[in-house]
Each structure stands twice: as structure tokens, then as C-alpha cells.
């Protein structure tokens, strides 16, 4: 069970974590609202149903009170007839000489709407008097009748029978009467002797029937009457019950004390109210099947459903608006922060002014704080960039300043060497070339120049060195015109030539060859300087471009390291020097540069004059 619940709970948790704020607020709010509405509707519905039921029961109790009143009145009327006959007529009459027919007829005539007959009989079953006067059916033995027997059971009491067909008198036209018999034991005086007899008052059953029919014509459910043992006296479905077509829980109802209760009978929920009728012990029972309340219940249910749906619609709309108003500023703020995260701000597409500030006070405050933070960050970043650029420039300047004295030293050394050898023309030529070389070196202060200028500079340098070394080596320059307009850092070829001369061909007595070659490959520019000198040992080669080369001091590769560092500072990535050497074969140092036209490079602000 725990495992079974764990999955959906986790699913809900995960869903909540991954969903938007608006979704979370909407769903939570709606779930709470629906639960509240459902709980409220159930409570209200239950209460209403109970109210409907209790109202029905109350109404039925009132009806029962009224029926009971009428029935009591009816019964008391019959009892008073019996009492009058008993105490005012029979008891005061000696039947030897007097008759009671006259008084009996008077009473009958006065009450004949409710009466079928009045009969006075001896305890042997002989009829002394009867009203109305009719022929007695032959063969009827009164002593066998229930009402007769019960009169002698408790002689002080009045006895009420259940409805039956009166069968004492013959009736023309095949008529018969359903009656409820009220019988009692009376004292009959004959010759001064008192003997017991029976006084029978047959109440017209239709009087009771009509009384209940009137009640059953109004309201819900039905009312019926039974005696204390549960024998049905009146029931709207009486004949159907006798025929076994319909069932009634009359025995159980008769055993109930007065009041209301619910029951399930014959697969039907019913509300029952019981009321006992005074002297007789009869029970008036009101039965209301719950299904008859179903219409009211159904109406109530539908009404509640409609109200619930209207409230839900209002909640959904309100929920949407409120959650939108609350979360939209947060969402916008989140979007602007997402843009920042994506680095848009770094590319100047967005600045801190694009950060959303709106919505409630708290969100505005949050927006302003983030904006201020971004502003601070941006300022710090700018400062850092600026500092980095300055640092790079100072570092380049430092490197540059290392090259110039180095070259100047070597060249002046050559000039000194020529003058000492009285080669004044060569010295003049060299100094002139040096002047040209310095002019290019200056390059109006630009560190980035075209390859064409750099090659001119290299050629001047070779000229100087060829004069100095009395053409101990030959130099070939082969530059692809396609790359002449590409950008390069100035004074990066000359140190390579210098190394090729000093460490490659200086001692080769005219057999030395230096080749300067420029070409494009795979979209990049390559400038190589090759010599056919003695090559570089592997251990030296491995350290040429490392910091060790720098620390070795004069003439031991500092130029190469310097050039490599400059290229990498400028162009980063995989650019720089490639050195290939084989002992006794020669060395090739290749400059690898990106192919960037000098015009294009010059346009990039901040990079041209570092």
C-alpha cells in the first residue's frame, strides 16, 4: 500500500518541482477550492436532505395527529352510542315486559351515517333487539363470531374487531357491508334476574376508509391503520396485500412505540411514523418511501451542482487572472535573467536596462536589486576586460622591447664588423637597409602590419646579413601574392632569419641556403624560414619554445620564444611557431597565422593598436 501510494505522491512532488509558478499556484488554488466546494456541497446536501426528511416526518406527524383526532372522535362517538345503549337503555330495562327497540332505533337513526347495525344478543346468541330491523340469516351462530367471543374475554372492556363482512342479517340485492364491530358484555335483566349478554355496534367501515383515503390523497407516502397485533384495518393497498401482491411491514410497525424511525423493507428505504390511537390500541402508521423524496433530493442535488459549477467557473477565471497578475512579473523577470544567463548581455544585445521591473512591490524590489547587481557585474567585467587588455599590451610592449635591442645589437655588430674590415660601401648599404628596416619597424606605432611589409622588412634584413656574411648563403623569397595583404604581427620573420643565419648557414662557406616561403593552407597563412644548416639536436628542439629557451640567455632561442609568445597572445588558439629540424639536413621554422586581411583587422576597434 505504501509503495502503491509512493509513486503518485512522488509524481505529484516531481510535477510540482518542474512546473511553473503560475501552474503551481493555479493548480493548488483550484485543488483547494474544489475540495472546499465539494466538502461544503456534501455538508449542505446532507443537511438539506436531513431537513427535507425531518420536515416530511414532521408533516406526517401532523397528519397523523389530525387523523388520530378524527379517528378518536369517530371511535368515541361509537363508544358513546354503546355506552348510551348499555347504561341508559339496557341497564334500566327489564326485558320481561319492556322492549329496547325504540331507543335502539333512535340511536341508530341519529348515527346511521356511521353505523351499519346495533344488535343486542343474549349469551346464548339469541338476538333480543336489532336496528335496523332485518331478517336474520338462517344458520348464523353468533357465538362463533369473534366479536361475540371477545366480548366475554374481558367483560369490563369494549372490544374492537378488525374489518369483516357483517353476516348476521340477510340483505336484498346481494348487498354486503364491511364493518368494524364494537362489542361489549352487558347485563340483561329478565324477571329481575341479571344475565350477561352482548351489545354489538357495527361501525361502517367505509367511514374509516374514507377518512384515510382523504389523508392519502394529499402529501407523500401513505397512511394506514392496524390494530395492536398488526392486523391491517385500513391500507390503501389492502386488497393487493391480501392477494399477496404487495407486502407491508405491519407486524413490525405495530410493535413500535410512537415516534418516527427509518427502515428498509422490501428493498425500499422508508421513513415511518407511528401513532397509537387512544382506547383501541390501534396504530396509525405513516410510511414515506425515501424514493418519493428523491425528486426533492434530486432538485437539491442539481441545484447544488449548478452552484458548485458557477463557483468553479468563477474560481477558474479568478484563479487565472490572479495567478497571471502575480506570476507574470516574476515570469518576465525570470525571462530577462535567462537572457542574461545566455550571455546576451555580454554581446551588448541587452544591458541592465532590459531587466524587467514591474508587478508588486516585492517583485519590483527584486528586479531593481538584480538590475543593480547586473550593473555592478557589468562594471566589474568591463574593468576586468580593460585590465586584461592593458596587461596584454604591456606584456607585448615588453616583448617588443626585447626584440628591438636584440636585433639592433646584431646589426650594429655586423656594421662594426664591416667597418673593421674597411668595407665601407657595405657598411653604408647596411646602415641604409637598417634605416629602412627601422622605418618599417616603427609602422606608425602599429604592431599589426601586412605580410607584404613584413616581407619587405625581412628582405632588408637579409640584404644586411648577406652583406655582413659576404654572401656565404643564398636566400630565396617566395611569397604567395594571395597572402600579401593578410595581417601579421610585425617583426616575426626577421628573428627566424636571424636564427637561420646564425645557427644554420653562418659557417657553410657559400653553400648555405635560406628559403623564405609564404603560402596559404587550410584557410590559414603559413610563413616558413628554412635553412640547410646542421639542424638542431632533439633535446634542444624540445625546449626551444618553452620558458627554458628564455632563460638560456643570448642567442639561444630567445627570439623564437618571443615570436611564439607574441603570436599566441594576439591570435590565441593553435597559432604560433612550428619547428622542424634534422641534424645535418637543416631546420624549418614555420609561422602559423590566421588568414585575416589587414583592412578587416584594422577595422576591429581596440585590436589594431595594442
Amino acid at each position, binding site marked *: 500500500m505504501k509503495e502503491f501510494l509512493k509513486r503518485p505522491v512522488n509524481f505529484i512532488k516531481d510535477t510540482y518541482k518542474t512546473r511553473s509558478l503560475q501552474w503551481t499556484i493555479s493548480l493548488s488554488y483550484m485543488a483547494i477550492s474544489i475540495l472546499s466546494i465539494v466538502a461544503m456541497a456534501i455538508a449542505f446536501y446532507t443537511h438539506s436532505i436531513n431537513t427535507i426528511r425531518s420536515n416530511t416526518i414532521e408533516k406526517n406527524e401532523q397528519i397523523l395527529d389530525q387523523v388520530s383526532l378524527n379517528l378518536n372522535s369517530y371511535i368515541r362517538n361509537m363508544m358513546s352510542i354503546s355506552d348510551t345503549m348499555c347504561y341508559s337503555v339496557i341497564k334500566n330495562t327489564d326485558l320481561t315486559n319492556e322492549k329496547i327497540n325504540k331507543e335502539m332505533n333512535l340511536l341508530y337513526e341519529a348515527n346511521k351515517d356511521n353505523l351499519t347495525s346495533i344488535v343486542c344478543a343474549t349469551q346464548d346468541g339469541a338476538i333480543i333487539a336489532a336496528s335496523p330491523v332485518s331478517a336474520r340469516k338462517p344458520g348464523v351462530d353468533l357465538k362463533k363470531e369473534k366479536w361475540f367471543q371477545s366480548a366475554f374475554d374481558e367483560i369490563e372492556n369494549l372490544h374492537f374487531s378488525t374489518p369483516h363482512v357483517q353476516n348476521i342479517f340477510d340483505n336484498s340485492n346481494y348487498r354486503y357491508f*364491511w364493518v368494524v364491530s364494537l362489542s361489549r358484555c352487558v347485563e340483561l335483566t329478565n324477571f329481575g334476574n341479571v344475565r350477561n349478554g352482548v351489545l354489538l355496534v357495527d361501525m361502517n367501515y367505509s367511514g374509516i376508509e374514507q377518512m384515510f383515503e382523504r389523508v392519502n390523497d394529499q402529501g407523500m407516502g401513505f397512511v394506514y391503520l392496524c390494530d395492536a397485533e398488526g392486523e391491517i384495518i385500513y391500507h390503501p393497498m389492502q386488497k*393487493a396485500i*391480501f392477494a399477496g401482491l404487495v407486502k407491508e411491514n405491519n407486524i413490525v410497525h405495530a410493535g413500535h412505540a410512537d415516534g418516527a424511525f427509518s427502515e428498509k423493507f422490501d428493498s425500499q428505504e422508508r421513513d415511518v411514523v407511528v401513532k397509537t390511537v387512544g382506547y383501541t390500541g390501534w396504530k396509525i402508521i405513516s410510511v414515506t418511501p425515501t424514493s418519493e423524496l428523491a*425528486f426533492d433530493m434530486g*432538485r437539491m442535488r*442539481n441545484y447544488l451542482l449548478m452552484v458548485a459549477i458557477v463557483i468553479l*467557473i468563477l474560481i477558474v477565471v479568478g484563479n487565472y487572472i490572479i495567478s497571471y497578475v502575480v506570476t507574470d512579473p516574476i515570469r518576465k523577470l525570470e525571462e530577462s535573467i535567462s537572457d542574461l544567463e545566455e550571455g546576451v548581455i555580454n554581446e551588448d544585445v541587452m544591458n541592465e536596462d532590459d531587466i524587467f521591473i514591474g508587478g508588486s512591490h516585492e517583485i519590483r524590489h527584486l528586479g531593481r536589486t538584480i538590475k543593480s547587481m547586473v550593473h555592478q557585474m557589468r562594471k566589474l567585467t568591463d574593468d576586468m576586460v580593460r585590465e586584461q587588455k592593458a596587461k596584454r599590451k604591456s606584456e607585448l610592449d615588453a616583448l617588443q622591447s626585447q626584440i628591438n635591442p636584440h636585433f639592433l645589437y646584431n646589426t650594429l655588430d655586423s656594421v662594426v664588423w664591416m667597418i673593421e674590415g674597411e668595407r665601407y660601401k657595405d657598411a653604408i648599404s647596411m646602415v641604409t637597409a637598417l634605416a629602412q628596416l627601422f622605418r618599417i619597424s616603427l609602422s606608425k606605432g602599429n604592431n599589426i602590419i601586412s605580410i607584404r611589409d613584413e616581407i619587405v622588412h625581412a628582405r632588408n634584413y637579409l640584404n644586411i646579413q648577406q652583406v655582413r656574411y659576404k654572401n656565404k648563403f643564398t636566400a630565396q623569397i617566395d611569397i604567395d601574392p594571395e597572402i600579401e595583404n593578410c595581417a601579421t604581427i610585425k617583426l616575426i620573420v626577421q628573428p627566424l632569419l636571424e636564427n637561420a643565419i646564425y645557427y644554420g648557414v653562418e659557417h657553410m662557406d657559400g653553400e648555405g641556403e635560406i628559403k623564405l616561403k609564404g603560402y596559404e593552407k587550410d584557410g590559414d597563412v603559413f610563413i616558413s624560414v628554412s635553412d640547410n644548416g646542421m639542424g638542431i639536436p632533439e633535446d634542444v628542439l624540445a625546449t626551444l619554445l618553452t620558458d627554458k629557451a628564455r632563460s638560456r640567455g643570448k642567442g639561444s632561442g630567445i627570439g623564437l620564444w618571443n615570436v611564439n609568445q607574441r603570436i599566441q597572445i594576439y591570435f590565441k588558439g593553435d597559432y604560433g611557431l612550428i619547428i622542424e629540424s634534422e641534424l645535418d639536413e637543416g631546420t624549418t621554422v614555420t609561422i602559423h597565422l590566421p588568414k585575416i586581411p589587414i583592412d578587416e583587422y584594422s577595422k576591429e576597434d581596440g585590436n589594431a593598436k595594442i
Partner: protein
Amino acid sequence: MLRFRKSRSFFAVTLLLLILLVIVAIQVNNREPAEKERKHVSLIVYGDDPERWENLRQGAGLVCGEKNADLSLLTMLSEDDAREQKEIIEREIEDGADALIIAACDSAEIIDFTNSQNMRIPIALVETTGAFSSPVKNAPVIAPDDYKMGYELGESLVENESDIVTVAIISENTLRDSVSLREQGLRDAIDGKVGKIINWERNEHEKDAKTRMFIQRALVSEATDVIVTFDNSTTDALLDALYNLNTSSKVYSIATSDKAVYYLYGKEIKVLVYPDEFAMGYLAAMNVLDGTNVLKKYRNTGIEYRLVTKENMYDEDNQALLFPFVN
């Protein structure tokens, strides 16, 4: 895109709730206590005495009252005029009756007629119909076991009378299957167990005569100890004939008329078999108005009947059957 999806969900939920609201509103409106259409049930019976059908009418009336329907009892001018009964059925259908309960005066004719009409309203047939002819289509038959009733009546006759007794059987209205079955049952029960069985039937001159006249002629012309009848009109006619001739005889009868009950006490009728026509009417009406199948058990042979004598006619169970409540 996300906002569009959210809006779409919002409008979908709102639209769904609105549709639900409309459905509930329509349902509420439909459930308003509009005056229910009252159905009309026609109870078409044979004979010209409506009181003879009081029990049946009360049973059907009880259901109609509960089901908000009107009930009309339609009698005929005669006992066995099938043409007239067919006309009444046609007229009731044309007049818009919602259901018919028919006590057929001529079983075969009425079955053929109802079967051929392809009726679209529910019909129930009371009293056995279709025992000797084509079966009834799409209509329940609600009746007691007529053969058994006749047989039990015969058994009581054999039990009460000596084995040399002469029994006259009045064969009237045998076009009704119920009567034929009752007679058949009785004959099977008494065959060989009584002295003599004679059949009282109309001769050629008496075909149009009143039943009472033909019985009077038979009473005068042929001596018998016991007379047996199988239906109300014949029983009543026999009792009238006996009264007119100021004679008496032992009558064994299957009937439900007030006169039969009255004469049961007056000794003319020795044994009366009394079927519960109230239940027949009740169940027939339930069938045509409710269409419920729970009443199937009462079809054909399920209706209760009682063998009543003078001695037990006022027993609690019997008096409720024999004496309908009449206000």
C-alpha cells in the same frame, strides 16, 4: 508558446465547466414537476354487466391510480360477439388508448385479431386465451389455471356427492378458452366417478334465446342432482332459472358474481370456485403500464383461486376475496 498553451487550457476548462452547467441546467429544467402525461388504459371485457368486473376493475384501478393513468371499463352488449369486441378494440386504439387490457369473448377470434393488428401499444389479456388456438404474440396472458380449477371443482363434487349422482354440465360460452378448460378439467375429474353426466346445450331453436330460458327448459325437461356451470353469466342465469322455477338443485360453479356469492350462503351453490380477479386486474395493469417482467410468474396459470363453501365463505382470507371493498 507557453502562455498560449496556458490560455488554451484555461479556456478549455472554462468551456468544459460551462457545458457542464448547461447540461445540469437542462436536466434541472427537465426534472421540474411538469404535469405528467396521463395515460389512458382501456379495460375491454365481454358481457353487459360492469359490476361483474368490479374486482378486476379495482385491481387495475389501484395500479392506474399509482401510475397516474385513467382506466375505462368497456363492456359489450352481449357475451360472445367477437365482432363487437373487435370494433371496441379498434375504436379504443383510434381514440388514443395507451394500453389495453382485454378479456376476450372469443379467444381464437380475438387472438387472430390482435396478432394481425401489429399493435404498438401494450396489451394484456386476462383469462386464459390461446389454449386452443394460435398463441398470443407480444401480450402477456394473466389468468388462473382454468383446467385445474375445473378439475378441483370436479374433485369436490366427487367427494361431496354419491357415486350415483347425475351431473348436468351446462356448456355455454365455450368460445372462451377459460370456459373450455374449466369444463375439460371437471370432466376429467368426475369421469367414471359419478352416476351420469348429461350435457345441457342449446338446441337449434334456442340459439338466440337467453341463457336463462334455455336452462329453464333443460331444468324442466331433464332431472338432475347436480348442475355445474363455469362462468358468471351462466351461473347467474342458472340461479335465476332456479328461482323462477322455484326449484332447487346442487350447483357447483366457477364464478365471481355477487349473485353467486349470495346464493352460496343461500345453499343453492354448494361449492364455488372463485378466482382472484383483483390480482388479475392488478397484474394486467402493471404489465401494460410498467412493462415489468417480475410479474411473469403470474402469467398463464399463476392467479390464485379458492374453493369456497357456505361454511368457509366468511373466513378472513375468503371474505377479502369474495367481498370487494365498495364505498
